[in-house]
């Protein structure tokens, strides 16, 4: 690789002052000259490089703002009342303010993944050296090993050192994006939205960097459809051993725990358990580790008293984790500068001294910014703490529970604080009489936030009561999850590229994101099963991948046991943790590149246009919570891939909705003729919050429709959409005439009914274009 920007190469230079031979100076960005593929139009795009593409999408999918409140409170001229068309003191109106907040959220998300990648890469370079090769599946033919980076930056990273340069670019972009949200900067909501897309694209590169670095160095599964199965669930933990809990996303400290155990022959003597994405990644590293569950399992697991030591790294860790850990007398080791928890920095202290302080209760925790030392301290502390703690828990005994429940005055403050408005007062009221059924019923629906407790004026430990009432359920939480396999193989893309693009595989649905579920995690599993049975390709990551595991079919098998892990029709593909989401985008990009032979290198607009018009993919973040979830979604929006969120996702303040009744919005260019052709509202929306899982499923099936579908493909997709509509809504959809382009697309089993509908609507045949939104692609031979 060499660099772009300033690249000076002198074979020989003679001046009056000196003679120089073989001088090469390079300042700027890395551009590989050996790569035969020409550099596309947008290498290392800046904030406005892809603005025109963004505005094309935003014309079809206009922002619908859902203001969370009427005011802006971001500067000292405020608060400003933005209601009824009023402007703030800086001139911003309510729309601009909403889009600005969305951008802020996406900047936070992109910064978090990129910061994660930066810390990870720095650590790995220190450990393995900058020349350590990137390999995410060369032995299984993964040639296009960093598709997102190739697409966005126009470079092929080959070593860990190459990744640093890409991170420099990402960090610069995030700084510029964040600065756009300052008072007196961007003043147009669509330009804010374009920057939101940019943040999402940057985020995808950051995620990819993080995951390919850790796959390469830690030997995580490399595009392996047969990645092993790991245990998941509270009931899987052997409590007769010292237990270490790791929480977060950045896995090196957890890797060092495993390595220390291995080096010292202690592996079978300690349970290593994890929550959130560190749990995913630690099982990718060592499948004997155990996943407890998603982000929302923190309170219930900690309070159960099972963990003896808690190691936190970064992201999605409860801010009160130290307080909760102290309640169960478990020391906390913080291992990231981003989350110091107010603890003393013990990085340079001797291991035995730290262990002694933690085990003896002298310190509630320690900040240790050296992963290797974390590994040793965590294990040694666990051994010392384990016999002393005796699995001390703060879940009340039954008589205590009843006593606490009797303090309830039914004031409803808990319910008013509960994100899901759960009937807590009624359940606590029943518990006061010794009936724990109501509490147990809440367990599956509870997202584990603990707001009920904070709100209770009588200091009832509501969440602990719920956990106590659910002891049997907790014991039975024993499931299997296929550990994150990483990228999709090139050969898998070759096998499914045609059927996806032609529509014969009805779609790729990606179930991603966090665990703020409206009706419990079971819904994610039910959604997955519905699409698996219909032979969609189901991809999963993060907390959703865990929730999918927490369900067994009629045969007593989890979906990971019942379905193959291959990227194929009817496959259930767990790519891994949050940063593995990049492989989902990567798969779509690779379809355009490997199957359709579109140039990838710095060719973002064309590849996004291809994906948007031809690849029937849709994301679902049913329990999206965080700013990272927002930035992950926005990365997919820029690629033209629609994303559905659960009802709580409406709090993201902005949807991107198409109007199927606006015919003029749905024209594309026919790349063969240059004619503008009506292609129908496909996909209808780019960002959409569904009220119920049934609505989500029907919408997801519909959002897999693409203008490029062949007649056979459109028929298969419509058959699924219409069938699901009838199944879940009890009626036929009212938009069938907009999606049937010719009679051969009518699903055979519903022919009579649909022909009648078409006749009554005055339906006429419509052309099937070779669709593009980019006039420059008209007439380009492929």
């Amino acid at each position, binding site marked *: 690789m060499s660099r772009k920007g300033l690249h000076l190469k002198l074979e020989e230079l003679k001046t009056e002052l000196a003679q120089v031979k073989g001088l090469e100076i390079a300042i700027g960005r890395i551009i590989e000259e050996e790569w035969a593929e020409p550099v596309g139009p947008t290498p290392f795009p800046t904030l406005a490089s892809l603005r025109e593409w963004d505005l094309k999408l935003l014309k079809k999918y206009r922002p*619908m*703002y*859902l*203001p*969370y*409140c*009427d*005011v802006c409170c971001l500067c000292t001229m405020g608060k400003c*009342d*933005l*209601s*009824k*068309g009023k402007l703030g003191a800086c001139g911003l109106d*309510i729309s601009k303010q909403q889009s600005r907040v969305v951008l802020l959220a996406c900047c936070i998300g992109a910064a978090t993944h990129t910061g994660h990648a930066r810390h990870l890469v720095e650590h790995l370079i220190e450990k393995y050296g900058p020349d350590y090769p990137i390999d995410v599946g060369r032995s299984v033919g993964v040639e296009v090993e960093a598709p997102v980076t190739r697409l966005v930056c126009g470079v092929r990273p080959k070593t860990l050192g190459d990744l640093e340069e890409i991170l420099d670019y990402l960090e610069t972009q995030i700084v510029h994006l964040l600065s756009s949200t300052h008072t007196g900067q961007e003043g147009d909501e669509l330009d804010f939205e374009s920057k939101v897309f940019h943040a999402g694209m940057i985020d995808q590169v950051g995620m990819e960097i993080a995951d390919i670095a850790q796959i390469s160095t830690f030997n995580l599964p490399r595009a392996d459809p047969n990645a092993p199965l790991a245990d998941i669930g509270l009931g899987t933990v052997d409590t007769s051993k010292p237990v270490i809990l790791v929480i977060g996303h950045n896995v090196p400290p957890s890797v060092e725990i495993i390595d220390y155990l291995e080096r010292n022959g202690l592996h079978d003597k300690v349970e290593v358990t994890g929550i959130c994405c560190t749990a995913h990644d630690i099982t990718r590293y060592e499948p004997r580790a155990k996943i407890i569950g998603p982000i929302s399992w923190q309170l219930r697991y900690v309070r159960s008293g099972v963990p003896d030591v808690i190691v936190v790294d970064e992201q999605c860790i409860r801010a009160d984790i130290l307080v909760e850990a102290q309640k169960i007398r478990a020391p906390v080791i913080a291992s990231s500068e981003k989350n110091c928890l107010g603890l003393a920095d013990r990085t340079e202290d001797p291991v035995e001294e730290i262990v002694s302080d933690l085990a003896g209760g002298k310190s509630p925790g320690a900040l240790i910014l050296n992963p290797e030392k974390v590994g040793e301290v965590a294990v040694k502390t666990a051994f010392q703490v384990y016999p002393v703690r005796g699995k001390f828990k703060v879940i009340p005994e039954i008589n205590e529970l009843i006593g606490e429940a009797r303090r309830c005055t039914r004031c409803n*403050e808990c319910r*008013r*604080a509960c*994100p899901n*408005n759960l009937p807590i007062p009624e359940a606590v009221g029943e518990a006061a009489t010794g009936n724990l059924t109501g509490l147990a019923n809440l367990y599956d629906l509870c997202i584990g936030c603990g707001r009920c407790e904070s*709100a209770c004026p009588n200091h009832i430990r509501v969440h602990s009561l719920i956990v106590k009432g659910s002891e049997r359920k907790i014991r039975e939480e024993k499931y299997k999850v296929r550990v994150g396999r990483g990228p999709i193989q090139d050969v898998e893309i070759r096998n499914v590229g045609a059927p996806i693009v032609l529509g014969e595989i009805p779609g790729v649905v990606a179930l991603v994101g966090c665990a703020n579920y*409206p009706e419990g995690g079971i819904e994610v599993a039910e959604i997955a099963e519905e699409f698996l049975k219909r032979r969609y390709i189901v991809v999963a990551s993060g907390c959703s991948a865990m929730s999918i595991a927490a369900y067994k079919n009629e045969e007593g098998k989890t979906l990971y046991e019942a379905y193959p892990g291959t990227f194929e029709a009817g496959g259930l593909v767990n790519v891994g943790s949050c940063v593995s989401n990049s492989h989902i985008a990567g798969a779509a990009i690779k379809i355009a590149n490997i199957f359709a032979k579109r140039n990838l290198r710095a060719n973002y607009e064309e590849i996004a246009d291809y994906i948007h018009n031809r690849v029937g993919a849709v994301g679902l973040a049913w329990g999206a919570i965080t700013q990272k979830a927002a930035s992950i979604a926005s990365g997919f929006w820029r690629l033209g891939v629609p994303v559905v969120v659960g*009802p*709580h996702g*409406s*709090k993201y*303040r902005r*949807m991107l*909705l198409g*109007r199927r*009744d606006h015919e003029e919005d749905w024209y594309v260019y026919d790349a063969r003729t240059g004619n503008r052709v009506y292609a129908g509202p496909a996909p209808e929306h780019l960002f*959409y*919050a*569904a*009220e*119920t899982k*049934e*609505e989500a499923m*029907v*919408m997801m099936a519909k959002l897999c429709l693409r203008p490029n579908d062949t007649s056979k493909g459109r028929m298969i997709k419509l058959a699924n959409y219409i069938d699901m509509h009838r199944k*879940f*809504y*009890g*009626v036929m*959809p*009212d938009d069938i005439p907009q999606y049937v382009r010719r009679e051969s697309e009518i699903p055979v089993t519903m022919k009579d009914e649909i022909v009648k509908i078409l006749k009554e609507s005055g339906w006429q045949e419509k052309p099937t274009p070779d669709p593009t939104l980019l006039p420059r692609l008209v007439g380009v031979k492929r």
Partner: protein
Amino acid sequence: MMRSEPWQTAEIPGPVRALTILKPEVAVSAINRSKHPIIVVGHEAVETELEDAKPIDYAIRIADSTEAQVVATAHIIGEFISRGFKRACWMSILDIANRLKDPGWGGLDGKGQYDLALFMGIPYYMEWVTLSSLKHYAPHLKTISIDRFHQPHATWSFPNITLKDWQKQLEAIATQLERK
């Protein structure tokens, strides 16, 4: 007219807040004044049990007596049909709200934009942001939440009331409209 607290305690709306419906006559009067009303009904209208009825049954009675257009959101369109009410259309809560804020929309019946929208059965927080959107972007539209929890972004909303009182209010509104 008094103002009420939001049901979810942290949901503070801002300076413009709903007027509280203390008497059913307030809602009845607003509905009667409307030239082109619409009722938007979410899935909780079939999940909540009242005495001998569900909230959806009141939505149907109100729609029958006013000839208001009904939109069933989520997956409950079939519930209307199974109750013999054929005039309901399906649309998601976001899609209908997106159209309600568009002054140029022709309406589901082709008679133009609506001037009053009643909401029932949408998850509290989702209805909250939807009503906020309409408050800001649909100045031509009045909104009434006929749910049992106070929605401060509506034009009018009940205060936070018990199931029993809610049913009484719904019964009174439906009965008064039927007497018209």
